């Protein structure tokens, strides 16, 4: 199969999205569902078939020229290489499972065509980011993903808060996109091209100052999409969307797009030490911030949302520490267990009668199928980082990379990482106990769980638990398959003496244990949550929303009022109306001259004669009539 068929991977979901959008409502519901799932599953199968093409430098496929004007010559091109292959596999795989789950979840929803077309469009946009050869196609995917998340968050648009949440998500990510666009323009101006591989090749020849600023811009762009510190307020509200959307977009794919961008441009970004420390710093700060917020959340999905933000913080720290392999490893394992947790949360909400608040749940092991508890526990265990689980190995790899980094400041980040791990373990088990332990505190009657909502959870559970095999560290006898798979793209190879590795593993196990026991002690017997300043502070995400609102939204609206009514109404229109009034004033004045009386007309005659005489005398006196 020649490489131009590579385009089928992103185009298949796109075609299905368009078909469902156009014919969705007219054809039976089953047709839309089947088409949606096959669209994504087909892409998954194609990725597996094309796996061989990703060896070595990977294959490049060009569809047609997109923009050709003067020095700009950009075309729709894909680059399927060793970095993109596993990512595509994960995206299409997880998406297939989520689509199956969504068929079950959205069973009663009437407006299914819009949902499935947007989901497929989202997968297309994500694949465009992953497989893009030049930055403009990546930007196309980047904004496409933002659009689909806007559409899907605000899916139940009848309630205005959902629509507002969607708009907020789109705007905040759009701010991030601006920084990415500036970096894109700058790179084009200095390198004359937007193709990623060429930029990476020319990276060494660029001046260090420029590289630092461009990398920082790329970082801010990535923060927008991956909900990192400065631009993270939208992720918590994004939970207004249906659960499959949260699972797909806000756990597995979109939030990791930022990490993938930094990995894709790693050769450029890694040249500037300042940028690398900045990436790690932002990762660490977001991790600790999100972890603390997760402690006090009342809704199950918001806990998971903050947890995602925290885990993506870990991935940023991995990239900052120079280990692309570590970041991608954690990205893949996180995608599996976080998608699992979100889908399980969906089932839990169904069981609790559409109730989101975990303090109104409890004792769900008995209300629904018992297997749901075990699957949820599997995900929780990976998230908390219990030994031998996928989450454990990937998180430990990152902490190792941070610990062994030559730069001493990374030790501080390592410490932050360890504290965050502790908090992660605590809020994970807090969630498990509150949801499953004790008596049912809610009022809702349980909805029956369709088979399709339970069946896809199992594969993700196994992948999460056995994820460690992907990149088993050497001292445990593993072959670090992922690291070797990336080889030249993998960044810094982490080498540490045995004592250090064992010390870190023991520390990690201890941390998880402490977290579990603390949660056990606190939440095993249910006690009503007491409201105090700290819990409200954490619940509102350190009042970040209020800060953004006062700093940006209100001044923007004030400027709007100033420009529109201030400038336009009073200043510009005011002057115009002033002129018009002056003109009519003069004309009324002059019109009064014609009083209608003959004497005035004759006196005007006389005045004219007097002016003539006066002028005439002036002429005589001055020039003697030259």
């Amino acid at each position, binding site marked *: 199969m020649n490489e131009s068929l590579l385009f089928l991977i992103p185009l298949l979901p796109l075609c299905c999205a368009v078909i469902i959008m156009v014919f969705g409502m007219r054809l039976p519901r089953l047709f839309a569902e089947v088409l949606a799932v096959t669209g994504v599953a087909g892409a998954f199968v194609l990725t597996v078939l094309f796996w061989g093409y990703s060896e070595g430098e990977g294959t490049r496929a060009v569809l047609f020229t997109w923009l050709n004007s003067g020095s700009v010559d950009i075309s729709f091109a894909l680059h399927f290489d060793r970095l993109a292959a596993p990512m595509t596999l994960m995206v299409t795989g997880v998406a297939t499972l989520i689509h199956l789950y969504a068929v079950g979840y959205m069973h009663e929803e009437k407006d299914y065509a819009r949902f499935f077309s947007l989901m497929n469009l989202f997968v297309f946009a994500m694949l465009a980011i992953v497989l893009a050869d030049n930055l403009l196609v990546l930007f196309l995917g980047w904004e496409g993903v933002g659009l689909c998340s806007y559409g899907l968050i605000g899916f139940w648009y009848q309630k205005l808060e959902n629509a507002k949440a969607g708009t907020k998500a789109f705007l905040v990510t759009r701010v991030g996109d601006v920084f990415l666009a500036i970096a894109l323009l700058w790179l084009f101006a200095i390198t004359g091209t937007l193709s990623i591989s060429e930029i990476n090749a020319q990276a060494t020849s660029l001046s260090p100052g420029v590289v630092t600023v461009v990398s920082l811009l790329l970082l801010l762009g990535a923060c927008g999409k991956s909900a990192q510190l400065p631009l993270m307020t939208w992720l918590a509200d994004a939970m207004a969307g249906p659960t499959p959307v949260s699972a797909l977009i806000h756990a597995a794919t979109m939030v990791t797009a930022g990490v993938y961008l930094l990995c894709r441009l790693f050769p450029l970004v890694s040249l500037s030490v300042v940028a690398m420390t900045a990436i790690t710093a932002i990762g660490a700060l977001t991790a600790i911030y999100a972890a603390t917020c997760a402690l006090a959340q009342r809704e199950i999905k918001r806990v998971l949302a903050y947890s995602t933000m925290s885990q993506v913080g870990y991935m940023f720290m991995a990239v900052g520490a120079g280990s692309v392999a570590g970041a991608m490893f954690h990205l893949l394992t996180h995608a599996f267990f976080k998608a699992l947790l979100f889908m399980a949360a969906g089932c839990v909400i169904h069981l609790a009668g559409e109730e989101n608040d975990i303090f109104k749940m409890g004792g769900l092991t008995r209300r629904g199928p018992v297997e749901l508890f075990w699957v949820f526990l599997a995900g929780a265990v990976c998230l908390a980082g219990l030994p031998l689980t996928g989450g454990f190995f990937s998180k430990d790899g990152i902490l190792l990379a941070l610990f062994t980094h030559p730069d001493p400041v990374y030790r501080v980040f390592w410490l932050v990482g360890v504290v965050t791990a502790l908090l992660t373990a605590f809020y994970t088990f807090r969630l498990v106990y509150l949801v499953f332990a004790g008596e049912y505190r809610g009022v809702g009657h349980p909805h029956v769980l369709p088979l399709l909502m339970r069946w896809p959870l199992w594969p993700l559970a196994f992948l999460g638990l056995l994820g460690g095999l992907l990149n088993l560290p050497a001292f445990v006898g593993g072959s670090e398959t992922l690291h070797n798979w990336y080889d030249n793209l993998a960044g810094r190879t982490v080498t540490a003496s045995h004592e250090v590795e064992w010390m870190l593993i023991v520390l990690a196990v201890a941390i998880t244990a402490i977290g579990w026991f603390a949660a056990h002690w606190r939440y095993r017997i249910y006690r009503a949550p007491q409201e105090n300043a700290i819990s409200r502070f954490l619940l509102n995400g350190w009042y970040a929303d209020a800060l953004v609102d006062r700093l940006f939204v209100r001044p923007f609206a004030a400027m709007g009022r100033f420009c529109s009514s201030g400038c336009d109404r009073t200043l510009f229109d005011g002057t115009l109306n002033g002129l018009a009034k002056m*003109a009519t004033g003069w004309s009324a004045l002059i019109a009064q001259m014609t009083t209608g009386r003959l004497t*005035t007309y004759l006196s005007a005659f006389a005045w004219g004669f007097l002016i003539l005489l006066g002028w005439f005398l002036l002429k005589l006196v001055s020039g003697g009539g030259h």
Partner: protein
Amino acid sequence: MSLLDLLALLPILILVFAGTTILMVGAWYKEPRPLIAGGILTALLAALAAGMVEPPVSEIAGLFSAGAYARFFTILWSLLAAAGLMLGARFVEDKKIGAGEYVSLVLYGAAGMALLSSATHLLGLFLALETFTLAFYILIACNRDCEFAAEAGLKYLLMGAVATGFMAFGIALIYASTGSLALPDAVTQLTTASGELHAWGLLGWGMILIAVGFKISLAPFHLWTADVYQGAPSPITALLATGSKGAVVAALVGMLAVSGPIWHDLVELLWLMAALTMLVGAFSALTQKNLKRLLAYSSVTHMGTLLVGLLCQTSAGLAATTFYVVVYVVASFGTFAVIASLADKRGEPMTFDDLRGLGYQHPVRCGVLVLLLLSLAGLPATAGFMAKFTIFHAALQSGYIGLVVIGVFASVVSFAFYLSVAMLLFKPDESASSWHAGSSLEHAVLAVCSSAVLLFGLFPGILFDLIGRLLP
């Protein structure tokens, strides 16, 4: 007055003799239609004669020239008289005015205008001026029903009389200082003569300027215009607004063409007068609530622009002024023709309340009115734009940047009030009362006017070349 002179004077003679015979016949035979038809035929015949018959001698009794320029304007004024009679036909019948008197007066007026345009001698100029002014004294006040007409007549009469006084005294002073009345040398001596007599001559020209100022309603002397236009019946106002002003300007252009730039002393005064006229005319029209008064003040603005053209005193300036006069005559006659065609028993639609939404009762005529107003404003694709373009071009060529800017400002203001009238006519919600359907003669006049405005707007070349050949 040899036989050749008489032959050269043929069109004027036709007008005058026919006028007298119709007057006599009118005394016995009261039926208006044939008399008016006779008047129209005479006017057309006179125009034909002026066009066809090549005058053997170029000057008649030293008073009037019979050159191409004079013949052109004789044709124009005869056609105007014919159109005036066509408009007046229905008016005369309704108001039971003596048709004979009406027709003869109009014909005498036309003869006076033709003579004025071809005057080369101050006496001829004065006589011609008086002939048609006297005719208009009576015509303005002939509508016995409306008491405004008498008032308008009185105002025009008194102001005209004073102006005649000034004109006579002005000519006398020029004669005193130069010793001759024939235009070319009366003027040349003025520039060469020196000493105290020259001063009197200059004052004489000033006085003539005042009389002309009254006649073509320049700034300080324009106060009578609005009242007379409003009071007089529309057919007469049409003739007054176009004929009398056009003839005076034509006389000035003829004089300047023959004697070259004579006004170098008066330029500052004329500059001030032109600017004042344009601005006063434009601004006083802005808040008018009566269409005829609005058109009166707009004609004041147009006269200001004409004065700018005269001020240049270059051949380009004179050609531009002549073009402007012809276009102004056609457009402004058309506007009053529309009002005349709408007039019925209740009078004429003048105030803005009558006009509101009138466009939907009489779409075609209101469309023509809007087209003519836009031409008066100077919208491209209509003759008005070409006229203003040439005037501004000539003024810029001879360096009157200030006047051009004032002219531009005045035309912006004039666009404002012309367009508000256009909007008023086609105001969608009000349903206005319907007026007279208008006779076929009036429709013919309107058709001629509107097509002329469009023709000269899109293909001004025709008129430009004609004028180029006329001016010596």
